């Protein structure tokens, strides 16, 4: 039974995902729980600019982006500022040990799983 993502209301969530449909799904899911979404960004450079401008409360990061890049630079940026984040990926093996304490949402996921994971993230962050 999911708590209807109470903690999400009014929070600013950075979303990095390069697949437009999945990005849109995440955006709508978060917005339907009252969060406001920064992004979605499909590129690391965009994500860093948006993050710096948008002051996110938390972030949801895809791991592998097109062109064999990863979102780890964004993860570093967030870590340095103490902003909680989670990964969502179909390839958890690609996440290094450096991030073993970061929550991981495995693709494919249902909207409810995303919400409960991010709720946990906000509660613990």
């Amino acid at each position, binding site marked *: *039974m*999911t708590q*209807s993502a109470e903690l999400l209301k009014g929070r600013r969530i950075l979303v990095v995902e390069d*697949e437009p*449909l*999945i990005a*849109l*799904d*995440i955006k*709508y*899911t978060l917005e*339907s729980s009252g969060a406001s979404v920064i992004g979605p960004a499909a590129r690391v450079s965009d994500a860093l600019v948006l993050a710096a401008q948008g002051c996110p409360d938390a972030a949801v990061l895809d791991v*592998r982006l097109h062109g064999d890049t990863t979102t780890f630079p964004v993860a570093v940026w967030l870590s340095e500022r103490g902003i909680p984040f989670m990964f969502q990926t*179909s*390839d958890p*093996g690609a996440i290094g040990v450096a991030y073993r304490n970061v929550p991981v949402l*495995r*693709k*494919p*996921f*249902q*909207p*409810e*799983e995303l919400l*409960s994971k991010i709720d946990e993230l906000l509660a613990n962050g």
Partner: protein
Amino acid sequence: MSSEPSAPVVEPAPDARPSVEGTAAKIAARERQQEILAELGVLALRGTPLPELLDETTRLAAEGLESEFCKILEYLPDVNRLIMRAGVGWPEGTVGQATLGADLESPSGYALRTGKPVISNQLENEERFRTPELLAANNIRRAINVILQGDGKPYGVLEVDSTSEQDFSEKDIAFLQGSANIIGMAIERQRREINLQSALEYQQVLVKEINHRVKNSLQLVSSMLNLRAKSQEDPAVSQILSETSARVGAISRAHDRLYRSSDVKRLELSAYLSEVCRDLEEAIPQCRVSFEAPSPAYMTTDRAIQVAILLTELVTNAAKHAYAKGGGRVWVSLKPIDRNSVSLSIRDEGVGLPAGFKVDGFRGLGMRLVSILSEQMGAEIQIERLPQGTEFSMVAHLDPEPDN
């Protein structure tokens, strides 16, 4: 495999006069050569690591031909040269470093190119070939070269060199070519093992990549359904789309488990269904799904997915109809009956079924799926009306783990 040496290239030798002592010594030398061939055979069969095998070969070949020098040259096609991979007698820094031309003008190049053994007993008077600098620098007067051949391309050349004046003979060729053939086979085997290993590694990378893509594609399907659900004004249609997305989820869990397991044909049902139940609990608001399975149960993947879809339908149904809006708990259990079958039950404590309810008499897609899937599995759905709530159950046949 060139098991027999081709007609050797031997320079004309001056007449030699045989003596009794000479003959006895020759026989002893031939016996030692036979022993060496046997030793090499054992080393090759044992799967001795290549560098060690090559070192031993040069040592034994030099001994067999009573010579001070021996080397194994590997052919480097890119630069058309031969590099010394192993050797005895050479100055320090030569083995692994020195290279020689692989053209027809050099004895080793000639042996490599033509596959014919080459004997040069008087290098200083040699007219057929130029004498490589390495040999001249070490005062080598005679040389014998044979090709090191695997099944495919030649590996290189085995060469024995000496500063002494005795001649190499055609019998020496037989010994040296025999040694080279044994080693050639071993090299070929190791080459194949390396190729197999790299093919396996490539395969593993491929599987990982495909797995990644399948999961991404399933996420796309799921996201598309979610987006359609959210853009629907009719809540009933929206609900159906969300449920369909959850069914995609149940199928993808199976994929995920398969990828992590070593057996793609069978799934362990209790771990799989436990994940499906957890997904369902998250997907259906106001509903708690408890799952219990006392022991592992194995089933073919296709049927396990059918069971998961059936379970998804029955749990969704219980949440929707048994509890209406208030929500409640659904108990799922997978209990062993015997070694070959389990009983799956889905129980709620809701309002109970409408009078006259039958699985196959129902119009909704969910129940139609349940009916079709259970029929396909040869299982009958039992419905029990409890004092409070309802229990659906069925017996499913397992495909138990083979005894090891």
